[in-house]
């Protein structure tokens, strides 16, 4: 029981980070219909940028803010250069564009920072675990989780209450209507990509704090996919719930199934779960019943 709760809680905490990245993913899809397979590389890029600034001796917050700023610029550039012209193209084209981007960014990251695992040095969070009741939780997890939750709240309130957020929602629902309200779709697309870059950067930085940073952190970008599929691709709450679910599921299967299937169950379980889930509920938990053709 204790083990179960422990696993569950760490899972949830990890899930918070997933949810954050998943949010960025869904945002892009909602606004511009792009199914983004480069999310993992966005994460990498953001994390490495923060790490670099941090290694220069800046406080983490400043490093993070700087990486957010760079994410913002990169987001706009990426959208402008690569994706703007693909509006209305077949899904495969758009997906492959993000695949191309992912190769490009990964190569770039590897080229600049190499493939060795790098850690935030000195560690940002104390290694001393925190005890809450009978639960023992690494501080890293706790703080990461809190940071993720705070950011999630910020983003969600941004969509719910600010003019820009509403504009983005409007564009997602009906581009023509949005245009008639004087909202520039191009602006919204760029904004979506910027926010995605920023969310991914934060997520990556947090993950990097937990296990150290190497190229496999980019795997996060793939784990996000089961999360958004569970949520139904175009639902922000869905993505958040999906993120938490996947984190939990991953941890649970790592703990309980590893015994039966030694090896990488932890990494594979979300995908197996997703495949089975899709067979029964092809549109996710909150998705539209819309068939898209590739």
């Amino acid at each position, binding site marked *: 029981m204790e083990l179960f709760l422990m696993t569950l809680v760490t899972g949830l905490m990890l899930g918070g980070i997933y949810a954050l990245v998943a949010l960025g993913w869904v945002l892009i899809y909602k606004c511009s219909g792009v199914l983004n397979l480069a999310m993992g590389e966005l994460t990498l890029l953001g994390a490495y940028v923060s790490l670099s600034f941090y290694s220069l001796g800046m406080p983490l917050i400043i490093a993070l803010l700087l990486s957010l700023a760079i994410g913002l610029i990169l987001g706009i550039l990426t959208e402008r250069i690569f994706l703007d012209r693909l509006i209305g193209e077949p899904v495969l084209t758009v997906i*492959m564009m993000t*695949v191309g981007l992912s*190769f490009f960014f990964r190569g*770039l990251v590897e080229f600049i920072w190499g493939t060795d695992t790098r850690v935030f040095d000195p560690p940002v969070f104390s290694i001393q675990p925190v005890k809450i009741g009978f639960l023992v939780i690494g501080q890293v997890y706790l703080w990461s989780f809190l940071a993720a939750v705070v950011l999630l709240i910020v983003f969600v309130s941004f969509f719910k209450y600010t003019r820009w957020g509403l504009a983005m929602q409007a564009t997602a629902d009906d581009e023509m209507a949005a245009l008639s309200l004087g909202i520039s779709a191009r602006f919204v697309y760029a904004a979506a990509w910027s926010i995605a870059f920023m969310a991914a950067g934060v997520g990556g930085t947090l993950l990097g704090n937990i296990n150290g940073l190497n190229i496999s952190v980019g795997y996060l970008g793939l784990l996000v996919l089961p999360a958004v599929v569970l949520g139904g691709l175009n639902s922000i709450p869905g993505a958040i719930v999906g993120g938490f679910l996947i984190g939990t599921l991953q941890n649970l299967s790592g703990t309980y199934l590893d015994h039966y299937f030694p090896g990488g169950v932890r*990494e594979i379980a979300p*995908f197996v779960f997703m495949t089975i889930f899709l067979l029964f509920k092809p549109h996710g938990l909150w998705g539209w019943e819309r068939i898209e053709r*590739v």
Partner: protein
Amino acid sequence: MSHMPCGVYHERYAQDHALWRSRFVRVKMLLLAVFVYLLFPLWADTYYLGVANMVGYTVLGALGVQLLIGYCGQVTLGHAAFLAVGAYTSTLLVLQVPWPNFMLRAGLAYPVSIIAAAFAAGLWSLLFGLPSARVKGFYLILTTMAAQFITVDFVITQYVSQIGGRGQAFSLPPGTIKIGVWTIDNDRRVYFLMAFLVTCLTFALVNLLRSKVGRAWIAIRDNDIAAETMGINVVRYKLLAFFVAGFMGGIAGAFWISNLAAVSPEHFPWSWSLWLVGVILIGGVGSIHGVFFGSLFMVVVMELLTLAVMSLAGVYPELLMKLNFVKESAFGLAICGFLLFEPNGIAYRWWQMKNYFNLWPFSY
């Protein structure tokens, strides 16, 4: 509609249905065969043969991807899994099965293993094609991705690789790969095997595409509702497409072990799946020519890049170490560039060029 020179007419349907309908094309194909089977292997040294083998391997892998994406409309991002299944099946059969002596002497073990590998990969692919009965588009892409991770990163890495207790990689001692009396132990022999397999699989796919099965696939790609009212069992044909694509992938994988000293999961990463899709995108989706153009283009460009980096190494030695990262980025940029500037791929350009000269000196 294909362009035919004046004075080419057919008196029988067999002539009209022939693959190569005019003498010009037949001569062209003959010259191509002479080049591929005679001139090139005579002329090429180990380096060029190596490059050619890489091209051939890419073609073999990409044919299945082209079938699924280009002709059946089922996007797959996990094709390397089936190459891996093929490679591992073949390797295990060659290494682990106590073949009777006469078979070993006759060099039958490897050929038999190729066929077994093809079937194994085909069935494995069929299994992961099952969701295509229910899901489409992006969801299908995800399940094919799942195929990659489950197959390579889980089943093969964690279980298959442990067979025989050799650890991660299966080494293939020289002389194990034998077809008949013909030991495939150098690049030239690998080249001939490659050329033979590429010829066979290309013909098989081209023929399929002009018969019942291929037409059904294309119909499903273009308009699945109309296809169903034509009496086409859409699910069956989708699964068949997965099977055939996996089958071809299995052959590709089984072929590739002849070029490897050891087989390990690293040979079949997810990026290789993506690479294959990139190849058909660059070559041209829905075109057999495209498979060849894309493979040639990608392999040759990568080789040129290597050469360029080598020559720069004097100035900036670190570059040499980071060659792979440069390649990765370049591949990514190539895909992006093609999607932006040549979205129909090289095959379309080729078609346009042919058209330009066919219509010469007119434009229509």
